[in-house]
């Protein structure tokens, strides 16, 4: 029974995913069915289950650990899934996405994400990674008639498989080091040889690092990001830019701060360079973009850099910085992509910057919400992004990573420039030509409002979430 307890959130979402699949099978051709509602039920159930499991530290099958850390990430991922489903309710139909498959795949990939955060065995992490990734590859190309989507999906799949191979290779070397794929065994083995780690250890660490870096889209493994984000349907982009990143960061944290913790001094050096490069490339290239989805893709690369900085500097004060950052980035980013999805029509759905011209005159609330999300991503008070960035930089300064903090601060100033470009387009463009925005219903509006409220709430009263984040990260190191 204990075994099942630990996997309860995943189990609930899996059941919901199966229910959506069945519902789709029984749907008559033109029947409208609120399939998304099943997903909502599943995700809310998962959140409730995670709440009940809090502080229980349940272990399932020896490889799934429902500790506070994984439960925190589970909730974040479930919330991302909820937002995605809420935004999708109108968009899916308008864009001609097959709804049954869409919701099923989304839910399955959520299961993968949850599992990735909870697994304590490298092989299970790999399985989770694949559950998540394959679903997302398909979601990227779910509009089969759309050339850009198919291309993006194919690229993403190829590069993703590559990185999975690296990851698997890393697992193989880890096995060679410790004779087990379990993280605790690996941890013991590495701790024993920490004074003089052999080449096997380095290979294992490096290859795993590549695999994770790919999934969080850190430079130089970020190449797939802009194409995949641009080509995928916008709601899917919102989902994968937040969910995949959250899950990957969670697993990254668990593997590197528990198993490879003894070698921390070494991998932080390497990671510092990666983080700085990621921030710089993400922002500088982001400035040159004229497509909002691409721009936000580079922004998400830059945010990966901040997240890595949080991992590097995780310590007394900044311990919970990464988790807090993850949550605040997720609500703002998923909200921003929600707005992009809402203003797209069947013909005009590529997210060009010019599509935003005069949005404020056509749909003032959408423009204001978009501005809130963008400013939060840019790290402006009183939005969540401010506290989140503050936390990361404080942690970096505290740990003596001054260069990292300075690069982070400077790139976040530059990044504001491209967020503002969108704001300028929406609010200050003199061209007041009628922008046609398709109607959107109550569910999507509610979703956007909730995301905005969360953004403000985390920015003004962050204490509660910070405490939870601190409690949860304490369980892994």
């Amino acid at each position, binding site marked *: 029974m204990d075994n099942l307890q630990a996997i309860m959130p995943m189990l609930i979402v899996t059941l919901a995913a199966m229910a959506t699949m069945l519902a789709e099978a029984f749907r008559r051709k033109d029947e409208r069915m609120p399939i998304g509602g099943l997903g909502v039920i599943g995700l809310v159930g998962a959140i409730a289950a995670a709440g009940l499991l809090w502080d229980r530290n349940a272990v399932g099958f020896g490889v799934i650990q429902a500790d506070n850390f994984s439960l925190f990430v589970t909730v974040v991922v479930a919330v991302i899934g909820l937002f995605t489903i809420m935004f999708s309710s109108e968009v899916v139909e308008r864009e001609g996405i097959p709804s049954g498959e869409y919701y099923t795949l989304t839910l399955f990939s959520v299961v993968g994400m949850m599992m990735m955060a909870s697994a304590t065995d490298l092989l299970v992490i790999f399985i989770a990674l694949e559950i998540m990734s394959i679903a997302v590859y398909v979601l990227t190309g779910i509009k089969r008639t759309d050339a850009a989507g198919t291309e993006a999906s194919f690229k993403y799949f190829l590069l993703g498989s590559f990185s999975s191979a690296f990851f698997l290779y890393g697992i193989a070397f880890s096995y060679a080091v410790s004779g087990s794929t379990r993280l605790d065994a690996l941890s013991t083995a590495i701790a024993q040889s920490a004074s003089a780690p052999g080449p096997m250890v380095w290979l294992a660490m490096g290859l795993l690092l590549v695999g994770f870096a790919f999934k969080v889209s850190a430079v130089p493994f970020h190449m797939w990001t802009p194409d995949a984000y641009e080509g995928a349907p916008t709601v899917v982009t919102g989902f994968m830019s937040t969910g995949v990143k959250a899950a990957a960061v969670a697993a990254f944290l668990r593997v590197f701060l528990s198993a490879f913790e003894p070698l921390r001094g070494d991998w932080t050096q390497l990671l510092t360079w990666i983080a700085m490069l990621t921030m710089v490339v993400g922002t500088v290239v982001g400035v040159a973009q004229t497509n909002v989805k691409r721009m936000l893709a580079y922004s998400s690369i830059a945010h990966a850099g901040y997240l890595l900085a949080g991992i590097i500097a995780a310590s007394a004060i900044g311990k919970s910085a990464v988790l807090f950052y993850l949550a605040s980035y997720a609500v703002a980013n998923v909200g921003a992509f929600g707005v992009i999805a809402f203003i797209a029509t069947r013909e005009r759905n590529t997210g060009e910057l010019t599509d935003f011209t005069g949005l404020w005159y056509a749909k003032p609330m959408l423009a204001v919400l978009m501005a809130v999300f963008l400013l939060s991503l840019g790290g402006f008070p009183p939005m969540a992004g401010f506290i989140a960035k503050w936390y990361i930089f404080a942690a970096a300064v505290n740990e003596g990573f001054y260069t990292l903090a300075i690069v982070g*601060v400077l790139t976040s100033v530059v990044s504001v420039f491209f967020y503002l470009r969108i704001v300028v387009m929406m609010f200050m463009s003199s061209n007041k030509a009628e922008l046609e925005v398709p109607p959107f219903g109550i569910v999507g509006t509610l979703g956007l409002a909730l995301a905005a409220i969360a953004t403000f709430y985390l920015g003004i009263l962050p204490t509660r979430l910070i405490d939870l984040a601190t409690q949860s990260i304490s369980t892994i190191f």
Partner: protein
Amino acid sequence: MSLTLILLTPLVGALVLLAMPRRLEGGIKIVANVAAWAGFLVSLPLWWQFDPSSADQFQFVTRSPWIPSIGAEYHTGIDGFSALLVLLTTLMGGIAITASWSAVSLRIKEYYIALLVLQTGVIGAFIALDLLLFFLFFEVMLVPMYFLIGIWGSDRRLYSAIKFFLYTLVGSVVLLLGILALYFHLHAVTGVYSFDVTRYYTLDVPPRLQFWVFLAFFLGFSIKVPMFPFHTWLPDAHTDAPTAGSVILAALLLKAGTYGFFRFSMPMLPDATREAVPWIALLSLIGIVYGALCAMAQQDWKRLVAYSSVSHMGMVVLGLFALTPTGITGSLIQQINHGVSTGALFLLVGVVYERRHTRQIDAYGGIAAVMPLYAAIFLLMTMSSIGLPALNGFVGEVLILQGTFVVSKVWAGVAGLGIILGAAYMLWLYQRTMFGEITHDENRGLKDLGLREVFTFVPLIILAFWIGLYPKPFVDRLAPAVQRLVERVSPEIAAGAAAAVHAVPDAHAAPAVPATTHPAPGVH
């Protein structure tokens, strides 16, 4: 009145506006005006209830935990200077909103929301006694101002808005790094994580760290002031901002920079402050003269006033960094004065711009003939700006010069030159716009000030005379704050400070004070 109420009044107004339907234009304007002036009314008791003789550095203190895990608190309170700044903020906020009644017709709901949120941010920055809280408000000011310039501004508004935003943002993130460095130093020394400003006043910071933190703070605040060579955003922002935006920018936002020096840089980093004096004085002097020369060369009325701001703010910083009681008192008074007179000058430009839609100086001329009342108020404010005795500018400038003179005669001399140049460009501006023949036919039919417009100037005129004739109540309120700062930054002259501060205003307290301007019954 509690500070929180003062802080929240404009915000509540903004929220009410948010809920109002867009088509109720009249209602929106009324709500905005009511909210802004209610904000002024609830802040007014600060004038009487603030007790300059109190032993506490900060009064009206409210403290409650905000983010306990990092030691951030909702900690607000005011000393004499911030009390005056809060009063100035609520007054200028009301004036700016009333002045916008007919000037803005586009998207007025959002316009007033932006103004009220901006007001909240400014008040918050002046009352925050927690570094993180201060920083939050310091940044919050940025966004509504950006929208005000970018949406309701004139010709090159996009360029100006972005420039304003990025300049200030660069400054503030560097400021943030400085705050972090201090924060961790406090933790290293005392083992406590705290942003409580008063803790830092007694903290001993090693010289090397002081230097770096001072540099970071300096960058953050001097961009906001703005000091030469970081001033280039200001003329653009002012020129393209709507009138109310310019008024608030000049009267209040720039003060956030000098307030930052006063509240944070100087008392927290006294050694670095002393080291920095020559450099800052140099930059201030360049700012004073260069700003004045630039002002003289402008063809654009508003740009001219903007450059005059650069010059005047140079004066303010110079007085502050003279580190003498007189100089600091003068600087603080002059900040209020600058708010009053430059605020009024921008309002005045706004009045004719609303009628003529041009700011070019040569588009005017002979206006005094058609708008006599306007010309009279403009004259008064010109005189206030150039420091004519009996008006407010004089008091501040004399105190600053006096305070600077004892430190360096050269500085005082150059600053004096700046004042002369100031008189030149302002009088020349007055001459070109108000006197002479009417050269443009459009100007013949210009209407003089209406009742609402006069109403916006009345408080400023009263203040100009009041501070000019009887500055004592202001100086009294500032005295304890100045005293504390001097004790911290120049302990060697702190002993005689109190006497000097009290001696100075008496010299200017004109014998015949009109009964109407006789203030401050509650000063004990």
